[in-house]
Structures are given as structure tokens and as C-alpha cells.
């Protein structure tokens, strides 16, 4: 899958991350890295700590221990705003769209960090504010075309079926033109056709824009197909890390995850 695309240096290196919620150890001493332009999957049973891992990467959770090296800079923990500024975008396991807004507006929000106009200019909708709004609208329309959701652009997202909502959420993340995209179970609850579409979008994003992707997914077929490297978590611990083939052959993984859940 990865022909034609050059996997680069490590851009994100997580070292000895531990995260606790009171007595619950969500993550224990986890280390792994993400290379530029790769598709990195995180798998593991429910409650293994996968979502928590993404939350640590973009600063929603602050780990008690560990070191996060992002583009050569060490961070004790990440800050959501700084992470967004640095080009980390994500989608959520339980869709976190803005329900009362249209598809177009939801995706427009993804561009907010690129907007320079202030609220006074916005209020007057004058000159630069108007130009900027329309410029960003163009960019957003490209994303809408890419995701093939032109027909619903003016629909409030709350009225859309689940599969389309997931797609819109991907659109909102893409609107930020991220360098790293964190996807938390982007295909959960989808039918085969929707999954295929989503796979295609993810691969296209990776291929066309060189976006690095960190992906949590339960469908082993999908994971093995599209990812370059896989890290496996179980009960907050890392039990394997490597190419899909190596991970599939790992006895711990078979015991903990593949054997039980599938």
C-alpha cells in the first residue's frame, strides 16, 4: 500500500507515558513513535487505552509521567491549542460534531486557526473579512468535493446518518490541513460500503497530502491492509509493535486480542 510515498523521520516520539485516573491505570509506561507520512495503527481490546493515547497526543489528557517529543521538541504534556496550531487534528470515537451547525459551517470551523479577521471586521462583513471568508469557503468546498458530500453541505449535521457524520468529522479535521491526523475508530458502526469509502479517503489523504495518520481501528482486515506499522495495547500496556505481519504473528497479540475478540 505504501509504494510511491516516502516514509520519513520520526516526528512524534512518545516515551514512557503513564496516565492514571484515580486508581485506574489507563496507560502504563508506553513508548512508541510515529514517522512522517506513515499510517500508524493503534489496536487493542476495549478499554485498552487507545483513545487515552490520542488524548495524550493532542493535550486533552495530561499524563502523570512521560516525555513527548514532537518535531524535536520535548514536552512534559501537550496543550490542546498548541497541538492544533502545530498541525495535529483529530476525530473522535463518539462523533464530536457541532450538532446545531450545517455541514459547511462545521467544516469551516476547522479553518479557524487560519483566519486572521477579527470580530469587528466580521461584524461589518467588510473588505478583508468578506474576502477571507470566501477564500476559506473555497478551500472547504474542495474538501466537500473530496469527501463527496456536496449534496448535504447545507444540512444541519444533527440530521445526518451516522456514517455521513463520521465523514463530516473527517472533513472538519482535514480543513485544518493537518500534518498529523488522529483518527479514533473512523469506521466503527459503518457498513461495508461506507468502510470502503472511508478507507479510500484515508489512503488518499495520506497519499495526496502526505498527512501522517494515527489510526485506531477494530476491523483487523482494515488495519492490516492500510497501516504501515501497528502498536498493540492491552490493559494500558504495550504488548507489541511492528509491521502488520509481525504483529499478526505475535503470540501475545493472538492471546490478548485476536484470539479473544475475533
Amino acid at each position, binding site marked *: 500500500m505504501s509504494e510511491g510515498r516516502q516514509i520519513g523521520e520520526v516526528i512524534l516520539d512518545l516515551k514512557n507515558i503513564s496516565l492514571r485516573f484515580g486508581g485506574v491505570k489507563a496507560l502504563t509506561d508506553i513508548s512508541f513513535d510515529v514517522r512522517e507520512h506513515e499510517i500508524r495503527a493503534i489496536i487493542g481490546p476495549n478499554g485498552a487505552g487507545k483513545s487515552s493515547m490520542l488524548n495524550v497526543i*493532542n493535550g*486533552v489528557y495530561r499524563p502523570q509521567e512521560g516525555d513527548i517529543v514532537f518535531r524535536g521538541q520535548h514536552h512534559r504534556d501537550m496543550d*490542546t*491549542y498548541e*497541538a*492544533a*496550531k502545530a498541525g495535529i*487534528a*483529530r476525530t*473522535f470515537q463518539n462523533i*464530536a*460534531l*457541532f*450538532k*446545531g*451547525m450545517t455541514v459547511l*459551517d462545521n467544516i*469551516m*470551523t*476547522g479553518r*479557524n*486557526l487560519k*483566519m486572521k*479577521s477579527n*470580530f469587528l471586521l*466580521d*461584524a*461589518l*462583513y467588510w473588505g478583508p*473579512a*468578506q474576502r477571507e*471568508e*470566501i477564500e476559506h*469557503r*473555497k478551500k472547504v*468546498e474542495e474538501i466537500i468535493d473530496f469527501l463527496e458530500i456536496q449534496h448535504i453541505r447545507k444540512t444541519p449535521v444533527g440530521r445526518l446518518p451516522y456514517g455521513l457524520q463520521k465523514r463530516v468529522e473527517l472533513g*472538519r*479535521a482535514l480543513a*485544518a490541513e493537518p500534518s498529523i491526523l488522529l483518527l479514533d475508530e473512523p469506521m466503527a458502526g459503518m457498513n461495508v460500503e461506507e468502510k470502503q469509502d472511508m478507507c479510500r479517503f484515508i489512503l488518499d489523504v495520506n497519499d495526496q497530502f502526505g498527512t501522517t495518520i494515527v489510526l485506531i481501528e477494530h476491523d483487523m482486515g482494515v488495519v492490516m491492509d492500510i497501516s504501515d506499522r501497528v502498536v498493540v495495547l492491552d490493559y494500558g500496556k504495550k504488548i507489541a509493535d511492528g509491521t502488520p505481519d509481525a504483529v499478526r504473528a505475535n503470540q501475545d497479540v493472538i492471546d490478548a486480542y485476536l484470539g479473544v475478540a475475533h
Partner: protein
Amino acid sequence: MLYREAGQFKATYAEDSQIFPIRQDKIGIVLILAVAFVGIPLMSVAGFLSDYSFTAILTPFLIFSLAALGLNILTGYAGQLSLGTAAFMAVGAFASYNFMLRIEGMPILVAFILGGLCAAAVGIVFGLPSLRIRGFYLAAATLATQFFIVWCLTKVGWFTNYSSSGVITAQKIEMLGYTFDTAFSKYLFVLSVVCAMALLAKNMVRTNIGRSWMAIRDMDMAAEVIGFRPMRTKLMAFAVSSFYCGVAGALFAYAYLGTVEPEGFNLDLSFRILFMVIIGGVGSILGSFFGSAFIVLLPIFLNVLIHFLESSAGINLPSGISSSIELMVFGALIIFFLIVEPHGLARLWQIGKEKLRLWPFPH
């Protein structure tokens, strides 16, 4: 005139991003403005409209619309519940009064803007708790704002220029040598201010600042992750909302009542405006006007109805029954809207339009 958008194709995003992309909406708004700015003045000159229709209906309707719009920005768009609307209006009114009083040659519009800015500043301070608390607890905190501000204005004599009764008399509205002292001229003055501010609000809610408010309202964690800063966004909503309420309060004092005391801005008024937002439509600019019209007109309508019943049936209903019925109708309507149509009259209007758009086909 049919409400259709078929055949109206947008060739550019600029066209599609217009304030009213559908032609019929554009015509509608032009008609309304024509009636408000030309039709009503003509009717007034021709003697069809009494002063009463301005002082008791049109002017308060516009002022309440502005206050409801202010609250709607905060509650409807940014999702922060507030019971302190009247307090922010009071700040606007009393601040404008003091600017006019204490600064020689202060232009009235500047005083209103400064009054609005004072309200905005107070809004920011009392909006700070919203960074930590939400929903019911935030409502309780804004309730404290309501009582504290009114108490302050009553206790600190300086605000009312040490008037013994605590009542202030608003200065004349004068601009470029013209005095707005008739009911009709005050109406035109208020109309201009309200239209301008409604336009600004409409622009805000369809651009980045408005999207930041709605994002925080709908899913604050996701909003933060894509780079909106919750603190800045919420405080901005408090500031803009309070500015609108502050200007509405100034108009309330200067163009509607003429004399006010701090108690005139009590919790009752806050609730009235909240009801306007609920009935008119949470998160809708147009809804703020619907809600205000409804609440201003309902008591008048009920009064007429009761008089009619009394005279036609020859019975004498106990005095004060109209206000009791009014309260009951309000209560019932609010429960209705909260349960059945949380987006209020504005949503009903929109559904009506959607139906009309597809008419005569059911889908």
C-alpha cells in the same frame, strides 16, 4: 409570490455566502424595512397611527427585540444561560446617563456606545464563572449578578446623581441640532439603532466569531481541539451580548420610559426577555424579534379580547384578570415551546418556509 429557490443558481461562493441567499427572503426583508422606515412614518403623518402605537407597541417592541437579541447571542448562540439580562441593561442605561451628565457636550450616540461598553466590561467580569461552571450553576451565578448590580445602583448614590428617590431622568436625545422628542421621532431613532445592530449581529453569527460560539455551545471539547479558545470565546460572547443588552437598556431609559430607577431593571425584566428568546427561538436573530413582538402584543391583545367579552356579553370580569390570564398564557406557552418546539417561533417559521418551498409536493 411563491417561495422558491428553484432556478436561482449561485455561480460564486460570494453569492452563496450573502446574508439572504434566497431571493424571496431578500425581497421580504426589503419590504419589512420599507414598511418600518417609510410605510409607518407615512401612516403616522396621515394620522392613522396614534402616539400610543409608538410609545406602547412599536418602540418597546424594538427595544425588547434588541435585548432579546443580546441574550440570544449569549444563550442561543454561545450556549451560556443567563438570568442577568436586565442587570446588563441597567448598566447600559445608568452608564450612558452618567456619561451624558458628567461630560460636557457628550454626543448621545457615543454615550450609548460607551454605556454598551461598560455593560460589556461588567459582562466579562460576571462571565468569568462560566469558565468553570455551566448550566444551572451558571444561571445561579448570573442571578447573583442581577441582584448585585441592582443593589449597587440603588446603594451607591453617585450612579443616580444622588437623586433622593433613586429615579433618573434621561437627558434629551439630540443629534446634529435635532431633538428626538416626539413618540414618532424616537421610534425612528430606535429603529435605526436596532436595524444597524441586528445587521452586525447577523454578520457575526455567520462568520468565524459566530461559529466559535456555536462550536463551544455544541461540543466544547471538540471546539478546543480544533483551536477555539474556550475562555476567549465565552468571554467574547458575554461581552458582545452585554453590549447589546446595555444599548437596549440605554434605549429603554432614553427612548421608552424617560425616567427609570434601578428597580425597573429587576429580575422580572430578565425573565421577560428570557421568555422572548424561548418563545421566539433560541439561536435565531429573527426569533428575537418574533419573541419580542409576541410578548409585547400578547397583553394588548388579551386586554382587547377581555373588553370585547365584557361589552358583548355584558358581564363584568374582576379587574386584574387580564394580567392573570396573561401569566397563565405565558406559562402554558413556555412549557409548550420548551417541550414541543425548543427553537420557538423562528423554527415554526422556517418549517413553514420549507413546506412552502416544496409545495405542492409533500416531500
